[in-house]
């Protein structure tokens, strides 16, 4: 599939690659040629292989494929070996310098290089197989959902559902009572209420109350009255009202020294 896609939008070079075997360098090509001969690596018919190698290079050039310099170095190396074998009595006309530019200086060296290359190729094949296998194993990707999964599984949510149910119930109550009009008596027993609350504040040694402590009454009038009294006390500086955060609890604080004075 991927080959097809490539074929469509790539240039000539890649199209030729589809037709011709691709070689990963001169050793790769050489190996391919030796393999075709089905001979033991030690018995390479050097003359024949060299000829085939050169033929291949030629066909590549005809197809106007840029050849990496290494392929030419290999050609030179092979030709050098061939010449050496034709003139065995002259091991080297240009000892040293010439050989350094080549891949190998003797047939033994060539075989050694090929064997070493072959081993790495085998390991590369093994790695390829492993890669194929690994690619078919899918792992979980890091996902944002992860945290939610954990949380949802925590024992927290039934609690939340309970809370929601309570919220329903509470709202139901609120809903019914909300629109009710409360009429207060013209004469509010204000002073009586103040004394009552001051008495509570005095009696206890606490200096912090919650508004709910006072408003925890059944009668609506009572609640309104208490609320007004607390506001009055706050105005007079007898208590201070504090709310830490929006919708938070409202605290009724009595400064210690003032509490005594009351």
């Amino acid at each position, binding site marked *: *599939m991927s080959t097809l896609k490539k074929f469509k939008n790539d240039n000539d070079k890649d199209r030729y690659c589809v037709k011709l075997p691709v070689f990963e360098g001169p050793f790769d090509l050489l190996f391919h040629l030796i393999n075709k001969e089905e001979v033991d690596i030690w018995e390479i018919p050097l003359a024949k292989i060299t000829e085939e190698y050169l033929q291949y290079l030629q066909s590549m050039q005809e197809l106007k494929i840029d050849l990496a310099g290494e392929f030419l170095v290999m050609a030179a190396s092979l030709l050098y070996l061939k010449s050496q074998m034709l003139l065995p009595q002259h091991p080297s006309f240009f000892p040293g310098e010439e050989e350094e530019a080549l891949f190998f200086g003797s047939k033994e060296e060539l075989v050694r290089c090929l064997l070493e290359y072959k081993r790495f190729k085998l390991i590369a094949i093994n790695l390829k197989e492993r890669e194929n296998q690994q690619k078919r194993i*899918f792992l*979980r*990707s890091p*996902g*944002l*959902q*992860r*945290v*939610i*999964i*954990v*949380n*949802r*599984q*925590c*024992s*927290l*949510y*039934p*609690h*939340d*559902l309970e*809370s*929601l*149910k*309570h*919220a*329903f*119930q*509470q*709202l*139901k*109550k*609120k*809903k019914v009572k*909300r629109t009710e009009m409360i009429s207060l008596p013209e004469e509010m027993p204000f002073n009586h209420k103040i004394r009552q609350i001051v008495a509570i504040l005095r009696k206890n040694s606490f200096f912090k109350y919650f508004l709910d402590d006072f408003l925890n009454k059944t009668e609506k009038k009572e609640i309104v009255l208490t609320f007004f009294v607390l506001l009055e006390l706050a105005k007079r500086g007898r208590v201070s009202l504090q709310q830490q955060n*929006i*919708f938070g609890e409202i605290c009724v604080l009595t400064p210690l020294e003032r509490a005594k004075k009351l």
Partner: protein
Amino acid sequence: MEEDNKSGQALSTMAILEAALFLSHEPLSLEKLRQVCETTPQEIRDSLEKIKEELEKDDRGLVLLEMPQGYQLGTKPEAAAYVEKLFAEEEYTRTSLSRAALETLAIIAMKQPVTRLEIENIRGVKADGVIDNLLKKGLVKVTGRKEVLGRPLLFGITEEFLQYFGLKDLAELEDLKKIWLTDTVFPEFGETK
């Protein structure tokens, strides 16, 4: 897709389902699972049932969750205290919803679609902050505008709302609504702090 890929021995539907549910970070619908497994909805359902049974065993640490959008694997609630250690504090410590948020949610769930003003009228306090927060949390969404003066936004609950409260579907939410109708004595609302 690629038929040639399916080499090797065939896996059972149960195995494929496990693999698919394992990989997915979101619920998979029956239809999606059917596409993945290339089998009948009936076999999917049967296999899911078997998986569910298998997961009940003591040696398994997962549960199969049935959610409005489909099926998803999660860890057993009993494992929470252990697996929490895998995550950095701030990642898993979840703040419970505030009382204000719960009340607002309750109103939206019961009366959806509902405007901000309607919520405020019931709760008797401003609701903008709370609603913003719920929108951010994804528990609530804008469903449209009410065709009255000012065209106020209408709010409704999301699928995540159901998921968050462990509700399987809207039918389960309807059950909750019955609380609205029952006339039980109002129990003191537990402090969330």
